[in-house]
């Protein structure tokens, strides 16, 4: 019985451990190591080659951009790699002064050269970055990417000296510091990347992010990485603000199954979960009230309408469908996460006032459907609602179906596809209605409005409106931030008038957090800066 013999040596410590009342979470608190659930295995750690939220959690621990997030206040930019910055009068040129004490984790100083190199790298077409439109604010960046300009020095970035970065933009962008918090604007270590890429700026699989090779400028450095098991980072001794960093390390666990993740938390194996599945939310609220958090998260859930297909080309039909949804009931009974019914596309935050464009009005909805020519509901064509089987998608789809049946008397089929088939169908406009959503990338309404331009990759509805695009372009010439927001509201009004996407609710993030975690505050973008997080034993 070799197996028994193999088991025995570890059964004994396990039994001894069971006399030790402390859980893994307890022991980690004493070691000042934070254990975090991070959804699933990241695609990579190269900030130029990833697009996801879970990757951004990791990259934020390892790297640092020009500005960083305040630990509790939304929309505040704190010094990161840059110690100060200022804009010219019309916000078209920004100058960042880099801190001379900023270093990479191998001791090499972070200079403007690194930034120049990084921005050139992400804008190099042959690298294949998926997210570089975040940099198109820079003058000539888009043209360089598309190959219309081949000389990078014509792009609006200059380094007058080693520690100054001068960025010229394509228009007035008063919120540029907010944008630099996004990981696409982070620097990569030029000396390390080039070393592993044979001197080519666009080699994507150089292996420079492997443990042992990777070098980073953030509060933490990569310690170990075991696929589908964990990624561990430890305090970076060369970080310029290391005295403020109170954690000794962070352990990210890629737990895909959210029920397992919650149970791991209940079992004392984790300090912060990525999410709480809706089925557990009432249970968590009741039994773990100190640990359960439900916070606003900058994102909108909506149902896309394929406006190229009948009968969805008729605004009245879209509006009828939109008004027949009882958003409050949906939130209370299906998603249970304290979300907010979305009466517009852009979630109201800061000084932006979202207009009240849509709500639950079944009577008006029925009337609109009549007006559209469907008095006899039998005449309403058989259309489908496309959905993926992720998270609570299925329950939402069933709820929509139930509501449309109840309030409009029409039967909508549900077409459930696996994830990539779902994305594919949506991209190819091969659907009627599609359950989808969008998470904001930065704190400005344009992150929810820019996607709806004609043939925009993230539009996926076939909708286009010239006036809408004109207004958006106009907003970039508006220097006064307050007036600019008013202009954007005009654009949103058009979007909601025509309703290519039926807005449902504004997201919240629901998760469990150990009360011993400090320095963790609600943030709209959910991009908590790890350097301010600490663990205090009771």
């Amino acid at each position, binding site marked *: 019985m070799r197996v028994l013999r193999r088991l025995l040596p570890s059964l004994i410590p*396990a039994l001894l451990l069971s006399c030790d009342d402390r859980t893994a979470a307890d022991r980690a608190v004493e070691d000042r190591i934070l254990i975090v659930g991070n959804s699933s295995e990241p695609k990579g750690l190269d900030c130029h080659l990833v697009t996801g939220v879970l990757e951004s959690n990791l990259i934020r621990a390892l790297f640092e951009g020009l500005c960083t997030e305040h630990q509790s206040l939304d929309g505040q930019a704190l010094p990161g790699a840059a110690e100060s910055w200022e804009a010219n009068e019309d916000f078209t040129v920004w100058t960042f002064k880099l801190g001379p004490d900023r270093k990479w984790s191998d001791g090499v100083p972070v200079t403007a050269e690194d930034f120049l190199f990084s921005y050139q790298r992400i804008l190099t*077409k042959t690298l294949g970055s998926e997210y570089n439109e975040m940099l198109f604010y820079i003058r000539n960046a888009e043209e360089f990417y598309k190959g219309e300009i081949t000389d990078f020095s014509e792009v609006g970035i200059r380094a007058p000296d080693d520690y100054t970065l001068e960025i010229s933009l394509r228009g007035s962008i008063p919120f540029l510091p907010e944008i630099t918090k996004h990981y696409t604007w982070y620097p990569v270590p030029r000396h390390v990347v080039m070393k592993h890429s044979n001197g080519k700026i666009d080699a994507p699989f150089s292996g420079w992010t492997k443990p042992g090779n990777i070098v980073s400028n953030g509060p933490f450095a990569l310690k170990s990485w075991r696929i589908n098991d964990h990624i561990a980072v430890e305090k970076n001794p060369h970080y310029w603000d290391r005295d403020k960093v109170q954690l000794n390390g962070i352990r990210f666990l890629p737990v895909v199954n959210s029920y397992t993740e919650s149970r791991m938390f209940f079992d004392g194996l984790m300090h912060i979960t990525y999410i709480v599945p809706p089925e557990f939310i009432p249970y968590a609220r009741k039994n773990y009230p100190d640990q359960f958090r439900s916070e606003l998260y900058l994102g909108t859930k909506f149902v896309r309408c394929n406006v190229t297909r009948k009968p969805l080309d008729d605004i009245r039909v879209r509006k009828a469908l939109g008004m027949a949804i009882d958003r409050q009931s949906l939130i209370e009974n299906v998603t249970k996460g304290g979300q907010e019914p979305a009466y517009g596309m852009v979630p109201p935050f800061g000084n932006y006032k979202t207009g009240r464009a849509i709500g639950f009005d079944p009577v008006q909805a029925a009337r609109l459907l009549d007006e559209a020519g469907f008095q006899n509901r039998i005449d309403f064509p058989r259309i489908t609602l496309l959905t993926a089987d992720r998270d609570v998608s299925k329950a939402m789809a069933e709820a929509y179906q139930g509501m449309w049946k109840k309030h409009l008397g029409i039967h909508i089929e549900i077409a459930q596809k696996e994830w990539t088939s779902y*994305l*594919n169908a949506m*991209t190819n406009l091969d659907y009627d209605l599609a359950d989808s959503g969008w998470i904001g990338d930065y704190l400005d309404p344009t992150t929810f409005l820019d996607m709806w331009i004609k043939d925009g990759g993230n539009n996926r509805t076939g909708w286009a409106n010239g006036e809408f695009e004109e207004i958006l372009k106009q907003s970039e010439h508006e220097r006064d931030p307050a007036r600019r927001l008013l202009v954007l509201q005009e654009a949103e009004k058009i979007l909601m008038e025509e309703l290519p996407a039926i807005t449902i609710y504004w997201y919240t993030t629901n998760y469990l957090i150990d009360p011993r975690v400090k320095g963790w505050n609600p943030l709209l973008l959910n991009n908590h800066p790890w350097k301010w997080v600490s663990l205090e034993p009771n």
Partner: protein
Amino acid sequence: MIGFIFRRVLQGLLVLFVLYTLSFFLIKALPGDAFTTEKAMSPEAKEEQMKRFGLDKPWVIQYGLRLQRLLLQQDLGISPKKNRKVSLILQQSFPASVVLGLNAFLVACVIGIPLGIFSAVRKNTWVDYASMGFAMIGICVAAFIIGPLLQTQVAMRLPAFKVAGWDNPVDWILPAITLGLAPAAYLARLTRGGMLEVLGQDFVRTAQAKGVPPLTIITRHTLRGGLIPSVAYLGPAFAYLISGSFVVETIFQVPGMGRHFIDATIDRDEDLLLGCVLYYGFLIVILNLVSDIIQASLNPRLRESL
């Protein structure tokens, strides 16, 4: 015997080749590709990526190039979704799956086979019904129930067991039970069926009449024949077990290979999926061969088939 094994190995290579080819074209037929992403890629970026991975060429050329790379350089390619070499991914996840599979296999045999024998010998008594009932639990209560059940009732109550994770051998126990109960049920019933077939034969009655003790009848005379259906089942079952199970792995956070099969299919990660297919195919070929050899050794009449 050597000749037989040699022939089977050759056949196995042919199988792998056909498998690879079939799988390749099946995967290509799926809608979407590895670069269908939620935040849509710009057409330029997508074009770049397609070119980089050689996905812009006609399928047959892609097939040829991949095959060439596989045979001449033993290179399984790179996964665009995990940004790593496929061989590295498989290498890192293979140990966990093998350990999990072996343990599950053990659970299945240790529970299933004795139960089956008992039931066959005590046919139609309460022992029979109870054992079969117990065995049925393994099938009716699937992994996605047993797993969470064990997590909530065992792991959360006993400090020695963790809800999920794969750090030390104690963590092997719950996942192995979860994965092994269904095969245990199969084995119990197949063993029972097989034993009944053999126990019903004349020579058994003769032996009983002669006064041979029952235990000897079971172990020396009938067990070999009775286990044949089980062995036929075990070949592919074992291959399945050590290729990992998506459900058990995601419930217990086991860093195994089962996930890669599913992830690669959903992500349209061709090289990774083909790598998994080859690995699994290889196991099937070997294990079916072993299963056939064992069956033949148990029943000399089958040796003619070799």
